[in-house]
């Protein structure tokens, strides 16, 4: 550790920062096309924030990126422990990025536990930037290290940079007047400063962002700016880094961008659906990881046509949504696995009532409480089939964070056009991961036509239109008072009917209505050859890993295509025919083969499964290796 700069105080840091713009470094600048960086520390170290800010900084340079936050389910696990480690991985590139990357090139570790748990993932020869001050005897013991890995030569195969981030931050803030605890909180900005310098990202934008973020607490704004500056200055001045890195320019589509997570994109999509249809949005939800942020985001938008209701449980979330849809709102409820289970009975009622509403399941590891903060795709069969009775529900899934926006609108498009509940599946990976989003022009968004029936003449509550949808009638409409309910209903009047043939007819028509949505699904996009040796069929968050693996295999001359399903029930009309054009069908999923089951059942096809249930996304290599085995 160099002590030359350890005395940086606020003025020193400023002076150092002042030099930066004009400083001609004698260091080498290595050009990159792609890098994967993982920030890891204690839950309280603020690594999610560091990662977020770093990803914004690279997005602003026009680079594509994809992130993967990975945090424990404990809010503040005991410090220094192996299970308390929180990580944030970002891949950014001069080319389009689909995943947060397999193995990191760079590991920024704030303590021994972070190193211990993440080192196995680091590329051979990769960079480790370690907060050496946290490698104390106590922390080493908590991480079950016999000796200090920073000193014992065990990291010889990597490029190790030791920086006493804690100490430098404390020194930089010695005159700040902040408590020791608050000073400790600024470490992450020091680390961010180091990384911005190392990757040749500008520094002033971040300063103004900090000022904005902490506008209400100027003393924290000052402290964080000081820490950031000190980190940047340190990385600039130290002789430790012989090389810095510069990403080659990207050819991103011109336009206005923001970084967005799947949950935020979904929330915006739902507000958009309300605005586009002119129908108010109602969300009734009960908090559950990793879905809660949708409720949070919408709760802050009460100046829009949005009512938010934190219900007493998921059943009430679903039921209040039914009540609101009955009242003429776009009904929305958001949840994850266990909450989805609770909503099941009421979802059946919504099917009987034929009311338009959307249920979002941000899937997590199951069964039961499972792995709340990890992602999985194991609720697909539950979504398609998991109800009593013949109870068809359209199911769609988003493939990326920004796709959640489009899927939110698509879910309501189907719901109101066909008068049906719709399930939207995302997962914890998509929900929390961020990527740059090319902000759409409002005029380019699809229109959502909603018609409330107000004409009493000839009104039959269950008479159907050409899409087999029944009319949507708001209570309060004169002359159309009627009753609906969960008991089987007469085909036209909706009155209770136990007539055997009527029941057959109602079961058939509910099934036909949902099946009929297939004609309303655009043709599938095929990435790669239109026929050939192998087609990979995916759904949801596996998109990126599959796309990248396919491209790699194609570069090797393999005949491999990729089809990604947004609509899972009903399946797109052209899927069966497409699958027949390839010798082999490979279905990678983060479950034990649920889409595989559906494909076999629908198309009587042999399907090769590739399954993983570790609470982690697929590595590109997982899929790439399987492709090479198959063709």
């Amino acid at each position, binding site marked *: 550790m160099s002590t030359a700069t350890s005395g940086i105080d606020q003025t020193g840091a400023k002076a150092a920062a002042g030099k930066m713009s004009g400083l001609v470094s004698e260091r080498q600048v290595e050009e990159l096309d792609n890098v994967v960086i993982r920030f890891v520390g204690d839950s309280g170290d603020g690594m999610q924030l560091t990662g977020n800010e770093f990803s914004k900084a690279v997005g602003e340079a026009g680079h594509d990126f994809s992130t993967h936050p990975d945090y424990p389910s404990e809010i503040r696990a005991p410090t220094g422990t192996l299970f308390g480690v929180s990580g944030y991985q970002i891949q950014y590139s001069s080319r389009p990025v689909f995943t947060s990357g397999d193995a990191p090139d760079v590991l920024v570790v704030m303590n021994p536990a972070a190193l211990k748990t993440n080192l196995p993932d680091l590329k051979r020869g990769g960079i480790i930037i370690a907060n050496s001050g946290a490698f104390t005897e106590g922390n080493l013991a908590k991480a079950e290290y016999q000796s200090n890995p920073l000193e014992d030569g065990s990291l010889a195969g990597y490029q190790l940079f030791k920086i006493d981030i804690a100490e430098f931050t404390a020194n930089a803030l010695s005159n700040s007047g902040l408590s020791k605890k608050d000073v400790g909180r600024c470490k992450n900005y020091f680390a961010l400063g180091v990384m911005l310098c190392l990757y040749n990202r500008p520094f002033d934008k971040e300063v103004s962002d900090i000022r904005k973020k902490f506008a209400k607490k100027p003393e924290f704004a000052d402290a964080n700016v000081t820490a950031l500056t000190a980190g940047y200055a340190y990385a600039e001045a130290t002789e430790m880094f012989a090389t810095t890195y510069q990403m080659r320019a990207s050819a991103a589509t011109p336009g206005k961008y923001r970084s967005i997570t799947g949950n935020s994109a979904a929330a915006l999509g739902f507000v958009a659906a309300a605005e586009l249809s002119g129908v108010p949005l109602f969300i009734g939800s009960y908090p559950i990881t990793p879905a809660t942020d949708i409720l949070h985001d919408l709760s802050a938008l009460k100046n829009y046509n949005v009512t938010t209701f934190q219900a007493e449980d998921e059943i*009430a979330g679903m*039921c209040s949504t039914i*009540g609101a849809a009955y009242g003429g709102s776009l009904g929305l409820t958001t949840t994850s696995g266990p909450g989805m289970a609770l909503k099941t009975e009421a979802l059946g009622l919504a099917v009987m009532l034929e009311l338009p509403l959307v249920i979002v399941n941000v899937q997590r590891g199951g069964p039961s409480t499972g792995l709340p903060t990890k992602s999985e795709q194991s609720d697909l069969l539950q979504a398609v089939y998991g109800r009593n009775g013949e109870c068809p529900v359209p199911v769609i899934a988003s493939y990326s964070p920004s796709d959640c926006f489009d899927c939110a609108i698509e879910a309501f498009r189907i719901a109101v056009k066909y008068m049906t509940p719709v399930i939207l599946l995302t997962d914890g990976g998509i929900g929390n991961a961020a990527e740059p989003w090319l902000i759409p022009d409002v005029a380019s968004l699809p229109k959502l036509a909603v018609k409330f029936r107000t004409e009493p003449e000839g009104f039959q509550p269950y008479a159907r239109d050409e899409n087999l949808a029944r009319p949507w009638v708001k209570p309060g409409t004169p002359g159309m008072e009627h009753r609906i309910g969960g008991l089987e209903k007469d085909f036209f009047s909706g009155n209770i009917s136990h007539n055997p043939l009527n029941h057959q007819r109602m079961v058939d028509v509910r099934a036909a209505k949902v099946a009929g949505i297939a004609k309303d699904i655009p043709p599938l996009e095929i990435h790669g050859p239109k026929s050939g040796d192998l087609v990979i069929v995916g759904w949801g968050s596996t998109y990126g890993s599959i796309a990248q693996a396919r491209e790699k295999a194609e570069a090797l001359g393999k005949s491999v295509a990729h089809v990604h399903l947004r609509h899972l029930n009903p399946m797109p009309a052209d899927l069966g025919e497409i699958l027949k054009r390839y010798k082999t069908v490979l279905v990678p999923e983060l479950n034990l083969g649920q889409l595989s089951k559906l494909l076999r059942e629908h198309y009587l096809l042999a399907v090769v499964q590739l399954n993983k249930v570790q609470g982690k996304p697929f590595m590109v290599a997982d899929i790439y290796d399987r492709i090479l085995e198959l063709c």
Partner: protein
Amino acid sequence: MNSPNELADKIHSLTKKDFESDQDVRWCPGCGDYAVLAQVQKILPTLGIPRENFAFISGIGCSSRFPYYMETYGMHSIHGRAPAIASGLKLSRPELSVWVVTGDGDALAIGGNHFIHAMRRNIGLKIILLNNRIYGLTKGQYSPTSEIGKKTKSTPMGSIDRPFSPVAVALGAGATFVARAVDSDLKHMASVLERAAAHKGTAFVEILQNCVVFNDDAYGALSNKATRADAGVFLEHGKPLVFGKDRNKGIRLKGWEPELVTLGENGATEADLVMHDEKASNGGLAFFLSQLENPKFPVPLGVFRDLEEPAYEELNKAMAEGARVAKGPGDLGRLLSSGETWIIK
């Protein structure tokens, strides 16, 4: 659309018949539910509300068939969930008059959670609980209000469950309007229902309802002409708890315990009796009353509590208006490009 005058005429000309649907009522002959249906149909035309603005939401049970018989908007939903569905409806459409009809199993067993939270929030629902102290629709199992020792098919040796009082539960949940009536006293029931209809926030009415098939005579003493004056005490705001055929019995407090007295005996006077106060901000008196039961004490009938508190839907509306004032009306384009953005040229 109607002009205001036409609307007023239309509302004015509504009658009980206008609230009767064309569906055959399918309760057992002699079931107490008939009386409740008739009284509700009788008071609705008097409320000054257009018929199309009523919505009746129910769960599952004999009692929950209620909406089918009402010529209003209505939903027969799933077991126990009516308050949650009605809450979503009321929040999204505060101008509607939303009624929940439920049973002792529906509201207090499977739906207990929604029941208490509706009242905790004070959302504008009228909740009528038809308490027959039995599960009617599933053919006679004991319910959360059945007495200890109740023999049913699922409790052949007698129930060991302790019952609770719906009124006590409602009070515990913070209900701002809590009342009780008995199916055999039509006039009193109608007056209680009118009070509930006029209340802002959640209005809870327990109706002691006889199930002739599975729990006949559960309220025999209260319904029998010969005994009812002694078996019940009518609560009247600002009046002492006097009851009995000769109106010479009363209830007074001895420490925290109720004590039955006969006026004029042992020096007991009206001044010694518990004075009813619906408006007491402390719920103690109402809870005390909720514990009085036959046969030791008369069953209180009438309004236990009636407080003026803001209704949930009003607060929600005010919050949305506040947000609009503070942040301006929503603008989708601005929303999409909010947060930290950057431009790629």
